[in-house]
């Protein structure tokens, strides 16, 4: 979403009232503060309207038996929706699938992304091409690349099974048998996400002063030793950031599942978001869908807070 701050033509809206000055005269800081508020107002208003308001509404709905189809606000049912989720075998299964997905996809994608970033840290001929090749899957629309993957992996005339067949192996139902379906979705997501991680890590690595590496080289450290003693510790903050965004992204996986496997076979690839979609838009169980969304939100917040703590930042997330 483009930030209004970047727009040079943004007309500042009427600023929010600054805090009351302690003295009688406004300090420079307060004057600056006032224009600061004016600058962030458009974004804040849009965010409040399109993110915060639906969020609060969702939390509200999660305590009712709201049916999106009838349009009546449902009756208050307390925590019944949440209790129901934990007795719902389907929800537990989707939560488990999402858990496996997050635990595998996030660290593996980061490791591969960092590996390529380190490999491409030194300038050499064709470096830009390699970077571009790794980055393309990330910018391609997931719907399109998922469809391409489903053709490649098809047991009927797909390239992969064609190759396996030529080597004398029986065809594998990559998208329609367990555990292959989940493995295929995971492999797809890693392939799709590595480029982004690589670009961010590359930026972090290029921020490390060259003199550190030179000093270490003088002390006789080889490239591998230098990576573990210098590069890795210095990209920890970036690592933390990518871990948070990666986990939050992985918790919300939907598109590739919808296209590649449709959640099958036998629910083995259904994710939490798929469950929310089914409940909300297919069965019209607004309360259950909202409750699951709220749980997912809580999980996201917990993950972020824990990671920010681990990273030793004193930041707190303010969601009022």
């Amino acid at each position, binding site marked *: 979403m483009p930030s209004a701050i970047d727009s040079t033509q943004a007309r500042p809206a009427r600023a929010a009232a600054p805090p009351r000055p302690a003295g009688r005269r406004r300090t420079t800081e307060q004057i600056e503060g006032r224009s600061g508020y004016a600058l962030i107002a458009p974004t804040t208003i849009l965010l409040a309207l399109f993110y915060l308001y*639906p969020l609060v509404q969702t939390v509200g709905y999660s305590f009712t038996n709201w049916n999106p189809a009838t349009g009546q606000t449902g009756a208050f049912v307390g925590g019944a929706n949440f209790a129901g989720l934990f007795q719902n075998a389907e929800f537990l299964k989707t939560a488990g699938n999402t858990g496996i997905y997050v635990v595998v996809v996030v660290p593996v994608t980061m490791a591969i992304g960092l590996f390529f970033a380190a490999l491409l840290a030194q300038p050499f001929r064709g470096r830009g091409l390699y970077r571009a090749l790794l980055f393309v899957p990330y910018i391609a629309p997931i719907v399109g690349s998922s469809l391409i993957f489903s*053709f490649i992996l098809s047991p009927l005339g797909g390239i992969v099974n064609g190759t396996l067949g030529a080597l004398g192996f029986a065809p594998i139902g990559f998208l329609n048998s367990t555990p292959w379906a989940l493995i295929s979705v995971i492999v797809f997501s890693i392939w799709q996400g590595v480029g982004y991680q690589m670009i961010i890590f590359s930026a*972090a690595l290029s921020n490390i002063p060259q003199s550190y590496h030179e000093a270490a080289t003088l002390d006789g450290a080889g490239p591998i030793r230098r990576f573990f003693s210098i590069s890795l510790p*210095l990209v920890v903050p970036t690592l933390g950031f990518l871990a948070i965004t990666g986990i939050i992204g992985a918790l919300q996986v939907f598109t590739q599942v919808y296209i590649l496997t*449709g959640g099958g076979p036998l629910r083995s690839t259904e994710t939490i*978001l798929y469950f929310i979609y089914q409940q909300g838009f297919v*069965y*019209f169980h607004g309360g259950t869908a909202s409750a*699951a969304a709220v749980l997912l939100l809580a999980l996201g917040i917990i993950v972020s807070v824990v990671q920010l703590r681990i990273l030793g930042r004193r930041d707190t997330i*303010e969601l009022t």
Partner: protein
Amino acid sequence: MQLPKSSFIRPGRRRAITALAITATAALALTGCSGGSVTGNTGGGGGGKTDITVWYNYTGPNVTSAKKLIDKFNSSQDKYTVTPQYAANSDQFDAKLINALKNGTGPNMVLGDSTPQNIGQVVQTGKVLPLDSLLSDSSSSITKDTFTEGMLSTGSFNGKQYTLPTDVGDYAVVYNKQMFKEAGITDTPTTWTEFAADAKKLTKGTTQYGAYLPIGTGEWPVFTWQAMLWSAGGEFLNEDNTKVEFNSPEGVAALTAWTDMIKDGSAYPQSLQTASDNNGTPGMTAKKVAMQINGAYNLSVLDEGLGDGNVGVFPLPALKEPAMNLGTNNSYLIKGTKAQEAGSWAFLQYWLKPSTQAVWDSENGFLPSNKATADNATWTAYLDKNPRIATFAKELDYAKARPSITQYAEVSDALSQELQKAMLLKESPSDALAAAEKGAQAALDKQ
């Protein structure tokens, strides 16, 4: 050593990104990221004509065909102007419509809703116009007798007629003629016993399977298996749709007919159901299977893959009696002013006329819902040219429809999950149906 602060993302900025990402979780999860906007009808039309806004989810060639017929209606009279709008894809159509109706930005009419069994949710908004009095009006060109009982039932909820089927589709068995010749089969099977025997003859180890039977999630396996159940003499739900009936000896027989073919290796053992599956059509086009249950809309793909003249069609073989399931797209009117309601009704009558249906159905591969269309010259000429379509059309004589209940999606899902387990030989048919009954009954009892 002290770590330098990462300068890539400034702390404040990072906080914003994190908060944003978190907020997005819930918001996106519930808004379903639908794009595009559709405007409803704003009332007054130009030149004294009443504007009628029609929503549909037709795409591609269907749109060209629909617009042509709508233009014809507009120029045939001077009271109404019908404006069609694409609202959303079929998955999100009802949800979007319900939202629009609640905000008063809905259309005057919906043409060809492709999930008729979910229209109950739309009816609950109270904005759908009941059609009973219009159908019994002496000036109306369509009545309840225009349709077969099975077709009419797709549009009734709680004993009232709210929608009418405007497009009809069913399925039959498509087969590879070349493979039949090689196996020395001259007559197409009419009973399931013959079908299973032919499938055995058509099987060559794991390089060629006799048949592909629907395995997978979603509605297709349920939709096709229901005809098997009816053919065995079973029922899906009881008379007033309050009790699950498919867990019966007839149900077990119908499912065993399928699983036996997987067991003896004459049916393809994996699911071919993905987003790009077309009911498993790739199984045929890759020359992996000789027969499969499929819809008429996939014939062109099959002809392309197997060569013209190599794809034959025969009716779904019977276990005990011939049976068929109906898929319909239904149309309905939205409450509005007197003039708007009259205009929508006039247009729906035009749309259901045999002369309109003959053009629309032959151009788009649908089957007619108006019984009288069978005698329309345009339609009969089309069937003479396309005998395979005639096979699909003939099955409509004895076709039944799925129950019109709001919980249908959940009932179907409970059954679909268990059908899949049985077809993957992870459960016996009787265990699968017992488990499905439990899930489906719980869904039925919910409201």
